[in-house]
């Protein structure tokens, strides 16, 4: 044994055997650090599902496919089309080992690692160009382009925030994905192959030549799209290759019948040679139809995501408000865009801490503050920064505002990052974010106090009493920064509840309560928006006369935003009230029956459900008693519950119809208007469906009389998945009339 210096090797087999002999079978000797994780990672030798070297009798270790055999054009198309399925499976989150690295041609091309491009070939032997099988040349060029694409995509994803294994597997098992080769050289190979196909079109037939050409063209365009995406300007030119891919993809799909499958060119055995302890796992097989749909969606999303860059109206500074809408609507698509597209979205938004490639975080944060709480405020005046005298109030303003920006910037950007993740993670991440925003709000309040001293703000009685005599009522200050933080926090809390509906987290008998809580949060938000509007109006009135046109415009914009925000909150609470009342009635009528739950109590389940909100001080989590009383509304008759639901739905519908008529600008949805409008109309349909449910139940109740329950009512209620409903945040049950004698 060539041991290192100072280490003496000796045989412990005997000793070990003797010691092990004193153990009983199954007795476990472990130290305290041997965890479940280690035990899950342990392998069992000679179990074919765990031991990668374990072979079935007669099985060979490696696949014995001959990559040098001549290929027909149909076979090349067949192989390429199979590679599309594997490529898509990888984009969806399956590892390379079970997808692209099961292809023998790619494997031979990458292993042993080629040092020059000429060696990046599944046939390493040097053959004169003229003598090569043209189909080998085509397949090689295609694979070069494919692998290089993968390298880029892997690299970009790793650079942004994502969850390994959950969203994507970046592991390449020590295979180099042509990392060091120049993109231009690879492009040249593809172009050469395209020319070659063209030159032999008469020999192989036009149809096959075109089909091969489309496939190569797609690779060229894909590489181009990736190459361009690092630039964050000029979305029109960025979108060209995506549009090209979208068109070519249709041609590829239409020519799929020309392909001849070559299943032998794919093998799980290759996994044994990868740097992994995993035994071979099956190839992930997406169907051609699924693959087609997902690629098509990928290209459409690739075009759409560029719209995030499209807002460049320098007059308006409301950049991020638009982008909140953009990200929200983009990310709530079903199915969600692939992780690569979400990576692009993140890099467009935040790369190098420069928002959308041109704006500083300060710029963005100040825009948001100006829109929501501080239109035309001297707090945000850039001239403050120029004051050098430390005793000047403007110097203090600049200093305090900078402190606040430093405090809030990360929390602010985290919200956007969170929304670029998968839906489950968004909800989990927001549960952390609200704890963070709780402290942002507290810190903001401290800075608010310092700022108001600097400008000598006069307190006001809020809410206004209407009386002349305000003695005995404590006047308050505008508190802009903490109001702003509180508004975000409330919105985050609402999102957490709404995502709970979307992800089917709540049990049917929890729906009444969770909609009540959502309504409660929306009411808090509406009250806060009212308060903000009140103080903004006061300030606008005070500054009337002295205000410049730009300041006037800022006030108007803010007023418009606040109007829209309070409208949105009102719609949410009306709809949530309606749902809460409807579900409470369904529960009371025995149409939704809770399971027996012998091991739990209502209060303990409330604790579990509300855990993310338990540590929030404002708004304080309602006590279990308040929650139950507000949800059950025991003193209210069932007919009245249903009637209230009906009235709230009417209100919500009226509100939504107004919203649906808003323009792109009014609704802050430039660049995502269609998706945004789709959301609004989905909500309208949900309202209508809920209206039908309420009506049917009311009618049956009237027919059968008070006190009729469950089956006797002749109704059956079902609750489907949120994703299958009209709008993922509004879970509307189905009612079915049944023969109650049955």
């Amino acid at each position: 044994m060539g041991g290192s210096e100072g280490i003496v090797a000796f045989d412990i087999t005997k000793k070990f055997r003797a010691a092990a002999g004193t153990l009983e079978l199954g007795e476990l000797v472990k130290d305290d650090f041997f965890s479940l994780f280690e035990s899950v990672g342990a392998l069992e030798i000679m179990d074919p599902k765990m031991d990668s070297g374990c072979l079935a009798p007669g099985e060979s270790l490696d696949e014995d496919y001959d990559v040098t055999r001549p290929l027909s054009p149909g076979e090349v198309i067949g192989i390429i089309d199979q590679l599309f399925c594997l490529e898509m499976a990888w984009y969806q989150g399956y590892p390379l080992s079970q997808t692209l690295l099961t292809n023998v041609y790619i494997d031979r091309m990458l292993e042993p690692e080629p040092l020059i491009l000429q060696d990046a070939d599944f046939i390493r032997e040097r053959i004169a160009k003229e003598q090569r099988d043209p189909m080998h040349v085509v397949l090689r060029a295609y694979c070069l382009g494919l692998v290089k694409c993968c390298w880029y995509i892997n690299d970009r994803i790793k650079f942004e925030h994502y969850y390994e294994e959950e969203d994507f597997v970046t592991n390449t098992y020590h295979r180099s994905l042509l990392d060091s080769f120049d993109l231009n050289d690879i492009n040249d190979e593809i172009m050469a192959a395209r020319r070659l196909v063209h030159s032999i079109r008469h020999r192989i037939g036009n149809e096959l030549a075109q089909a091969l050409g489309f496939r190569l063209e797609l690779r060229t365009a894909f590489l181009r799209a990736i190459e361009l995406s690092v630039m964050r300007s000029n979305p029109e030119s960025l979108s060209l290759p995506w549009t090209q891919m979208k068109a070519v993809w249709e041609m590829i799909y239409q020519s799929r019948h020309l392909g001849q499958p070559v299943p032998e060119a794919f093998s799980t055995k290759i996994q044994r040679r990868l740097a992994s302890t995993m035994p071979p796992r099956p190839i992930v097989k997406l169907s051609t139809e699924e693959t087609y749909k997902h690629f098509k969606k990928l290209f459409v999303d690739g075009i759409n995501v560029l719209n995030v860059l499209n807002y460049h109206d320098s007059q308006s500074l409301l950049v991020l408000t638009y982008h909140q809408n953009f990200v929200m609507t983009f990310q709530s698509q079903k199915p969600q865009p692939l992780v690569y597209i979400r990576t692009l979205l993140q890099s467009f938004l935040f790369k190098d801490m420069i928002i959308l490639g041109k704006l500083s975080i300060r710029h963005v944060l100040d825009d948001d503050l100006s829109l929501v709480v501080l239109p035309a405020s001297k707090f945000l005046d850039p001239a403050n920064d120029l004051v050098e005298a430390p005793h000047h109030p403007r110097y203090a303003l600049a200093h305090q505002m900078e402190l606040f920006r430093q405090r809030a910037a990360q929390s602010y950007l985290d919200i956007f990052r969170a929304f670029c993740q998968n839906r489950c993670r968004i909800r989990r991440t927001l549960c952390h974010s609200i704890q963070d925003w709780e402290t942002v709000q507290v810190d903001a309040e401290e800075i608010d106090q310092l700022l108001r001293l600097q400008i000598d703000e006069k307190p006001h009685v809020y809410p206004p009493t209407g009386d002349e005599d305000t003695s005995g009522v404590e006047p308050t200050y505008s508190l802009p920064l903490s109001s702003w933080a509180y508004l975000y926090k409330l919105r985050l809390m609402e999102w957490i509840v709404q995502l709970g509906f979307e992800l089917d987290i709540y049990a049917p008998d929890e729906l009444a309560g969770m909609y009540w809580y959502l309504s409660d949060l929306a009411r808090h938000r509406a009250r806060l928006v009212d308060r903000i509007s009140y103080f903004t109006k006061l300030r606008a009135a005070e500054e009337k006369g002295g205000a410049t046109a730009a300041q006037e415009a800022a006030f108007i914009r803010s007023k418009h935003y606040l109007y829209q925000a309070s409208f949105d909150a009102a719609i949410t609470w009306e709809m949530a009230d309606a749902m809460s009342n409807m579900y409470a009635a369904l529960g009371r009528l025995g149409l939704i029956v809770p399971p027996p739950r012998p091991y739990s109590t209502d209060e303990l389940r409330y604790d579990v459900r509300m855990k993310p909100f338990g540590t929030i001080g404002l708004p304080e989590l309602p006590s279990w008693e308040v929650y139950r009383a507000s949800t059950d509304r025991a003193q209210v008759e069932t007919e009245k519950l249903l009637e209230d639901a009906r009235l709230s739905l009417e209100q919500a519908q009226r509100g939504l119809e107004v919203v649906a008529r808003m323009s792109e600008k009014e609704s802050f949805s430039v660049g995502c208007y269609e998706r945004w409008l789709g959301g609004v109309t989905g909500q309208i349909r949900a309202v209508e469906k809920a209206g039908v449910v309420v009506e049917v139940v009311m009618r049956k109740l009237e027919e059968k009389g008070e006190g009729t329950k469950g089956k006797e009512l002749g109704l059956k209620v079902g609750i489907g998945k949120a994703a299958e409903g009209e709008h993922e945040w509004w879970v509307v049950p189905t009612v079915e009339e049944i023969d109650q004698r049955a």
Partner: protein
Amino acid sequence: MEQTSHHDRLPRELKYIQYEHRLETQYLPAIRALISKDLSEPYSIYVYRYFLYQWGHLCYLAIDPNDSSLVGVIICKLEAHASHSPPTLRGYIAMLAVQSTYRGHGVATTLVKMAIDSMKARNADEVVLETEETNIPAMRLYERLGFLRSKKLHRYYLNGNSAYRLVLLLKPVDPDSAADLALDEADIYR
């Protein structure tokens, strides 16, 4: 799943026993076989021993008395969960399976109840588990007993399926403990 002959026997005829180390030779192969049937990835023997050796008292077997064959099994653990302050005593249901021909007779329900009772007797604060989002029978079973879905875990399993984390709280939460959203031990257990 092979659903050849459905048993009409009553589960009352079955024998329910707590696992003990001396049963390893007789039952461990059957336990592994039963659980592996519904898994895309097998667990190594160390995973079973990890649980059985340390928490055999939280593992129960349903046995057919006629031929002493294994009908169902539940495997759990119970540990202090450190990401909490103060730490909670958390039960975890790691594996549960019933022979397909015996399903629908309350065998799994009985096994889960025995495990929870045993955890309760040992002062557990809560019991958690994950289940595939498509596993409707399992979710119904747990939700019937009082579990709630607390979060959804995206692509939690190697087959690409998502999971729900289910939680059964046995004692009120300490109002001061921070929201439990950190990486759970169960998060690494895929």
